[in-house]
């Protein structure tokens, strides 16, 4: 994260994951997201948190009458009185032509484009009786206005979401291209790693060619407690050299691409250990995977 290209965006990932950036900030951040694997990881790792926050609000009993109102207005099957309290009505400034757009999506089932049902006329009659036809007409226009705005908001949000997915997909595509370049390159070599007693079902393979990049693919690694991380090592005769930190997904799968340090001569014995989050300069934890080069 000391990359000068990253610094202007440092810590924006958290706000992005929370949906708390302004439009301008988001527009500036998304191109960075396409090239910064660290930020992609950060956003991805925080999504479960922001998702979980949805569920932390204490449940509340709704006011009496809301059920009838909702079911009545949405499906037209339950005759419910409309809310008689003052509502905050936005100014009715939408051009009538906009309201008449035939293809405009509506968020409500009781769209004015459908045939009015019994409930519609009953509600209209009651409103006319209570507040006069003008009041009903204004309220109805306001409702249509708000529906149109909501439809625009939905479309905008979906477009923003699509852009974000595209950014993540591009980053993923770049990774896949890098993997393919190594795996399909000339003179590809490999070291297979076998699961050790702590992870008997785990396995991994390290692949490289004449470039300085290595692909490490693993499966079946068990989940670790918070604060721990897997670390990959080149087990050189003099001293182990750290290769990469490995963060498997929930299924224990991980694919890591990294640059092989210049001090490492391949092929070399490789191992995965469990270390404190952030990694260690030398292995200190148990070995989960171990592989030696074959002649």
């Amino acid at each position, binding site marked *: 994260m000391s990359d000068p290209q990253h610094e202007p965006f440092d810590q924006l990932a958290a706000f992005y994951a929370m949906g708390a950036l302004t*439009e301008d900030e988001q527009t500036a951040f998304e191109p960075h997201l396409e090239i910064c694997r660290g930020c992609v990881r950060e956003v991805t790792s925080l999504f479960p948190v922001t998702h979980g926050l949805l569920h*932390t*609000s204490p*449940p509340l009993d709704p006011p009496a009458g809301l059920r009838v109102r909702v079911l009545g207005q949405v499906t037209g099957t339950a005759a419910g009185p409309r809310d008689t309290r003052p509502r*905050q009505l936005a100014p009715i400034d939408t051009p009538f032509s906009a309201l008449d757009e035939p293809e405009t999506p509506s*968020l409500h089932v009781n769209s004015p484009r459908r045939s009015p049902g019994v409930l519609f006329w009953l509600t209209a009659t009651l409103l006319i009786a209570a507040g006069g036809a003008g009041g009903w007409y204004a309220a109805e226009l306001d409702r249509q206005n708000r529906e149109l705005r909501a439809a625009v908001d939905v479309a905008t949000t979906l477009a*923003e979401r699509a852009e974000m997915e595209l950014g993540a997909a591009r980053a993923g595509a770049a990774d896949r291209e890098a993997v393919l370049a190594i795996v399909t390159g000339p003179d590809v070599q490999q070291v297979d790693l076998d699961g050790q007693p702590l992870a008997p079902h785990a396995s991994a393979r390290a692949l490289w060619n004449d470039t300085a990049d290595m692909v490490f693919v693993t499966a079946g690694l068990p989940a670790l407690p918070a604060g721990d991380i897997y670390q990959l090592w080149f087990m050189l005769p003099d001293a182990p050299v750290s290769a990469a930190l490995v963060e498997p997904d929930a299924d224990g799968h991980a694919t890591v691409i990294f640059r092989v340090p210049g001090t490492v001569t391949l092929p070399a014995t490789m191992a995965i250990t469990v270390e404190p989050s952030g990694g260690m300069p030398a292995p200190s934890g148990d070995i989960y995977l171990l592989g030696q080069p074959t002649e």
Partner: protein
Amino acid sequence: MVLGALIDDADTGREGAPADDRVADRDTVQRMTNGEPEALATIYDQHIRAVFGLAMRVLQNEGDAEDVVLEVFSQAWTQAKRYDATRGSVASWLLTITRSLAIDRLRSRRAGPDPPPHPPDTAVVELPDPALDAEHDVLTVASTPRLRATLTALPTIQRDAIELAYFEGLTPTQIAERSDQPLGTVASQIRTGLVKLREALTT
């Protein structure tokens, strides 16, 4: 162990909600796509307390919260075909819509009588986050008591900043101004708080 058995009942506002309810919810949404009004009534009864609770938490106004509830179930009714059970529970789907609509309303309220034409909001409307699948969703929901406890236990500055961003839709700059803290401090505090919450989800 059945993952669904881990669901915290309080998260959906229901008492004793078993794992089977999640399956029933999906079936009910499927019936909504067929235009069965009783299906919407069922979904409403199952989730209204959670939806109304979240709307109230964001809006702090009963009338606005009621209007948002109406919009939420309208959207659920019209977009039931888009619900993808592999991406999360019905509860998460409804709550995602609720948060998005409530924050939109809150921002419009702050902006005055003429709301901005395109309120910036990256909150998901159509579906829960695509990075999540149903299993993650279940695990996340199952961890809600820990998440709630951890959120409560966070230092005030971290908790307030997270709540302002997440439940009030404030931008980093707005949070910095409101809390009278440097922008970098706010960003750092939010990230630190979120990392602690993440740990709560994974322990």
